[in-house]
């Protein structure tokens, strides 16, 4: 793993508590790592795993989902749906081969700017330890396969025998 590895983290934050909490970190001029990119949703209940999977596909090394504390939801109980989903999403990601450090679901209230900064700090640190998320692309082999394919095409084009070795 590179010494200079800077993980990219996607933060999906609810508008009323967590996004406001992140704003408060700003107005309080607290410093935390620049690794997080925040996307706003109205409620953490809006978060679906497709957003998380998309993030990993797009090269995120971690995803942080944050909502209001249970009981404090601006939409009564949207975050209760969030807490129902989290254990299954975590298991799904683990099964797919994404380390548990890469997905965190937390509660940050509008007054917890400091907590938000600390969560980001911790997550960056944890992900640095396990390194970048690597897609299962098999790209190294792709190149070989492509060469084989090209050569067979050439053979076919010249009409010679023995295009493929595996007929």
């Amino acid at each position, binding site marked *: 793993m590179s010494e200079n590895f800077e993980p*990219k983290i*996607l933060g999906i934050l609810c*508008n*009323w*508590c967590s*996004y*406001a909490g*992140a*704003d408060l*970190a*700003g*107005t309080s*001029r*607290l*410093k*935390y790592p*620049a690794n997080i*990119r*925040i*996307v*706003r*949703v*109205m*409620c953490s*209940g*809006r*978060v*679906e795993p*497709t*957003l998380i999977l*998309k*993030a990993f596909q*797009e*090269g*995120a090394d971690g995803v942080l989902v944050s909502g*209001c504390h249970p*009981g*404090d*939801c*601006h*939409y*009564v*109980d*949207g975050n209760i*749906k969030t807490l129902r989903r989290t254990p299954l999403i975590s298991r799904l990601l683990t099964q797919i081969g994404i380390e548990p450090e890469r997905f965190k679901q937390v509660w940050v*209230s*509008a*007054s*917890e700017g400091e907590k938000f*900064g600390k969560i980001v700090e911790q997550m960056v640190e944890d992900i640095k330890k396990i390194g970048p998320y690597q897609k299962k692309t098999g790209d190294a082999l792709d190149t070989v396969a492509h060469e084989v394919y090209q050569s067979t095409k050439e053979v076919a084009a010249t009409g010679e025998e023995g295009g493929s070795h595996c007929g």
Partner: protein
Amino acid sequence: MSGQKIGVYVCHCGSNINGVVNCSKVAEEAAQLDGVVVSKDYKYMCSDPGQEMIKADIKEKGLDRVVVAACSPRMHEPTFRKALEGGGLNGYLLEMANIREHVSWVTKDKEEATKKALALVKGAVNRVKYHQPIEEKEVPVNDATLVIGAGIAGIQAALQVAEAGHKVYLIEKKQYIGGNMAKFDKTFPTLDCAACILTPKMVDVGQNPNIELYTSSEVIKVDGYVGNFTVTVKEKPRYINHEKCTGCGDCATACIMKNRIPHEFDEGLSKRGAAYIPFPQAVPLKAVIDDQNCLLLTRKKCTLACVKACGRKAINFNQHETIHEFNVGSIILATGFDLFDAKRAPQYGYGRYPNVINGLQFERMTNASGPTSGHILLEDGTEPKSVAIIHCVGSRDENYNKYCSRVCCMSSVKFAHMVKDHTDAEVYEFYIDMRTFGKGYEEFYNRVQEEGVHFIRGKGAEVAQKNGRLVVKAEDTLLGQYREIPVDLVILNTALEPRVDAEKVAQTLGISRSADGFFLESHIKLDPVTTTTDGIYLAGCCQSPKDIPDSVAQGSAAASQSLAIIATGKVKISPISASVDENQCAGCRICVGLCPYRAIKLNEETLRAEINQAVCKGCGTCAAACPSGAIKVSHFDNDQLLAQIEGVLA
């Protein structure tokens, strides 16, 4: 998707952003992004010239989408939406990239900050391409106001709204109004008596035809949104018929529990019965039956002396709790504070030594209608010869509350004056810093200094008993000396804390609290009265500790917020809502039970889910759960979010 002519505007916010983020570089790189036709950076985008720039570009360059990279959208999204509308574009064709709160203010490294800012701009550009115009919904405003809490702040707010000619429902948990201020004796800095200035207002509340007062009542449910809240209030039975009761007090005299129960209004310094009159100036001046101590109510066994004593036959033990429902346009929350329980700081001996009292007890003691008829007395009935006043008990203390309770320095100075005024005692004040910041406050402090009060700079560390006398231990930081001062009476000036049920109230109203537990204002400087929920306002100590002038000022401010909504007659509500694509909905019913507002119904004929747009608040929980992707939530649709995610991670 038609957003192919995007304008990007990067705000410097003076040096707030530009000092850390290289704004011109962000603008330059944004210009290269697909679909961007204009990309500029400017000193203050929210200023008139900044907004005009956007309007002009929309008109001249035919922009169909706008990205503003500036502060938090929670701050200026409405501003820039208006700018778009001024240029002839729908306000929802805007996306903001938060490069101030989320970038420049939280990032040390300039290069990192610039990189992050650009990523957020890319996300915004990607997202805005999928934005659709949305028409804002306007709803009429109910012109009634709910005020919760009838202390000085709530009373001020209620009177002001009522005097402007609008209905007010004033809800008070206690059996009487006036709050903590009703217990005070004199008020700083002018020393006018609290009752003299508060009682007329309390009487006004009782007499104003626009105010419907509910005492012994609590708000248990709040539904709806700005302009149209439905509030459910639970009124506890008082077992007294208010129409008949004259407040004569015959029942109190007759009650067989008389003088056996510590009286809350006197902070436990006097005793009352189970039937009693809270205090002579109480509004409403009606008898109260305490259901926790009434023998009939608790043990079903009593001589019913009160019933027999009441000539008006006003006592009715068959009363039950009643539920009221009100429709109001706005809510003013003025639930006040609780006093820090000094028993939590055992080093001060409160609860152990009878001559250690708290500030409110002292107020009751000096009050002419209080338990000692205005005399400052020790437990044994004698006057103290030496009194200590300890500041910051439970405030400015890592162990209890970090914040400053703001009123204690001044009230301590007032206490010192009162002691000097009522007795010949020596007075020692133990303070960390003396904070006398208000109008006429420093002058008052000077006056009391001249009265011969000993001010000792050092936090009172401990109250102990030595040779039958109390001793206050402290480090005098001016002398650099440890001191033990023997006194007869110790007044602990305890912290103002959030009400013990503040969390429950916050949940009922759907508002937030700050780290100290007080209700959270929308902006600490520019919007200290509004909560993060539209239509709910704060007044008085429920927002933060404050003195009477500030509480009154905030009460008035909250009232004018309510009146402003009423005057407008209409409010804009967020048009963000969910809808069902009938061609995709398979009627699986997964969404139906998820909506907290019951906005989703299954149409039994078509077997498709339907969403009531008037009720939907746009949280998007149903859209996230819809297995067939049939539910879309406007402005937070998958297309938009996925595009943004792709952009910020690019």
